[in-house]
């Protein structure tokens, strides 16, 4: 099938610019970009906020306790202030009003407003312990050297059987962003295609169009135009996410990030091409926007299933399920993106998946093109797949 490119490009240009110029689309893009940036920025913004804990103390406390408290706090990457209250009653008042996070009564009781904060509990307990040791050492009259020897902690090495590096955790985050972006872009732009196809059919523009261009030219142009717009949006949102990651702190950015952006773009292009043809062809089956939902349900279910499977794949990216799914065209775009981020993918695996994907896209264009051509001029109730197939074949 030789498709004269001029008409395809004309149709694509119209699709792209008409949609890009609509206010709804611009607002939607801004919201998506903001949401993606928020997804990156918010966790660290929230985590970075309240780092100073306030400890209320009732009764005697030594200078060494306060020193031990700040040492212990430093170990937890936080700061602690202490306030002395005259009696338990005053301390509890401060606790209730939120002026103190915990109240230490004597050296053997911690009072909380609602529940114990294990981290703060450990900080205070270890400070109490340290102050107590200091006191005993002092009472025994040991020399500073003896005291130092006594307090010298035994070094303990630790090792993990399945270590999760910070980098890996960040990769998981990145994979999640990539997945959400891939799935939502494919669904949203697929949805645009469905409504666009039905709009043309419902108001008969398609007859004017088809008196000037062939169905395959029209279909190809629509898919291409919407795809370029989608790619633009993916790149824009991706750039926003990268900028946000950089702004939050380069330490959070895994080494794999630039490569990851490349993978997302590749799998968006392939995944979009795969699903969009199906979306456009199913859109042609309906004549009214009310039927848009029902005709596209099977496609939506398929992509949703693939999307969920990819979260399963994220748990064990090199497991059998993930391996198999990364080759199957409906799931490959999502699962391969995940495996590229958190698993180990060899080049031949990617090459194989891309090849299978390309073959299935070619087949779908043929198949979808025929269904589109067979259904696009049939106004009225929903066209059955079989009828559309036959209509175009005769």
């Amino acid at each position, binding site marked *: 099938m030789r498709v004269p490119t001029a008409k395809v490009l004309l149709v694509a240009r119209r699709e792209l610019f008409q949609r890009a110029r609509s206010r709804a689309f611009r607002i939607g893009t801004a919201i998506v970009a903001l949401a993606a940036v928020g997804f990156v920025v918010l966790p660290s913004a929230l985590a970075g906020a309240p780092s100073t804990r306030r400890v209320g103390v009732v009764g005697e406390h030594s200078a060494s306790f306060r020193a031990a408290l700040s040492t212990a706090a430093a170990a937890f990457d936080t700061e602690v202030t202490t306030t002395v209250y005259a009696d338990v009653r005053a301390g509890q008042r401060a606790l209730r009003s939120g002026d103190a996070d915990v109240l230490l009564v004597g050296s053997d009781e911690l009072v909380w407003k609602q529940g114990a904060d294990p981290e703060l509990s450990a900080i205070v307990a270890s400070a109490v312990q340290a102050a107590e040791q200091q006191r005993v050492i002092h009472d025994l009259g040991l020399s500073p050297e003896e005291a130092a020897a006594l307090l010298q902690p035994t070094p303990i090495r630790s090792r993990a059987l399945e270590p999760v590096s910070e980098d890996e955790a960040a990769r998981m985050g990145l994979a999640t962003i990539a997945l959400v972006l891939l799935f939502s872009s494919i669904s949203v732009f697929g949805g645009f295609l469905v409504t666009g196809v039905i709009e043309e059919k419902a108001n*008969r523009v398609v*007859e004017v169009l*088809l008196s000037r*261009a062939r169905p395959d030219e029209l279909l190809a142009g629509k898919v291409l135009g919407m795809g370029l717009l989608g790619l633009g949006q993916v790149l824009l949102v991706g750039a926003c996410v990268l900028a946000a990651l950089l702004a939050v702190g380069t330490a959070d950015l895994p080494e794999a990030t630039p490569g990851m952006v490349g993978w997302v773009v590749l799998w968006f292009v392939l995944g979009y091409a795969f699903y969009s043809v199906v979306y456009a062809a199913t859109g042609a089956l309906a004549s009214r926007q009310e039927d848009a939902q029902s005709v596209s349900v099977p496609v939506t279910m398929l992509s949703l299933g693939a999307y969920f499977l990819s979260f399963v794949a994220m748990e064990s990216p090199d497991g059998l399920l993930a391996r198999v799914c990364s080759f199957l065209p409906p799931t490959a775009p999502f699962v391969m993106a995940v495996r590229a981020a958190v698993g180990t993918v060899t080049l031949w695996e990617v090459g194989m998946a891309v090849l299978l994907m390309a073959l299935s896209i070619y087949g779908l264009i043929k198949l979808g093109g025929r269904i589109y051509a067979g259904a696009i001029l049939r106004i009225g109730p929903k066209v059955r797949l079989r009828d559309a197939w036959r209509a175009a074949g005769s």
Partner: protein
Amino acid sequence: MLEVQDLTKRYGEVLALDGCNFSVSRGRIVGFLGPNGAGKTTTMRCIFGLARPDAGGVLWRGREVGREERRRFGYMPEERGLYPRMRVHEQLAYFAELSGLGGPAAAAAADRWLERLGLADRARSRVEELSHGNQQRVQLAVAMAHGPELLVLDEPFSGLDPIGVESVAGLLAELVSEGVTVLFSSHQLDLVEDVCQDVVIIDHGRVVLSGDVLELRASSSRRSLRVTVDGAPWIPSIGGVSVVPREEGRPRVLVDASTDLDEILRLAQQAGQVTQFSFEPPSLSDLFFETVTRKGSR
């Protein structure tokens, strides 16, 4: 010249076209008339390859109509057929480009047509913001922008008020005077009687009558007679009279063309004062019903 030859098209149980046969002469404005469901739209779709006939074909200047020929055609489908939210000028230029004009030529054609239709100030309006009549005119411009030799319009007058009909009809007449061939369909025979030079009347997928309107009317064996006596409709009591049932309040009868006019006038004057007396060739719908009834009774 456009020749539609023996078009047959079946949609499931429905036989939409049953050997539809007619031709359209160059530089004429041809009304393609018939009741709803007669097969008009299907025929037009076959001309543009939007429907594939089961049998028969369409020729343009003696050659089978294909992609190349269709580039010289302009088509306006029934109602709407425009992107409601696209701007008028952009839309015109887009369709012109899709019809094969280059970008600048398409933009120039859009300018020219908007100027011609008096819509230059609406160039940047969205189509949905225009009145129905103006939308119809933009549609015509869309069909014409690439300068086709044949213009095919499906129900261009439906839904238009008398002023709209007048303006579209005027435009079609202008186009024909510029050498364009126009084929348009309508189910309102009386509405378009004065617009077309030739007619093709179709019923149940077959052409029942075709030719030059004036000739068809004149050569009919019947005449339309309308007489008012003392302000009330009057019907002569002679042989061969058939009452036209459709015209409320202003009864009209068909009589044989050979009827003696003097005799009727004398009878009418005996009945009272004659305030109106018209004796004309039958209208297109008279011809249509006469033909259909004759065929039906056969």
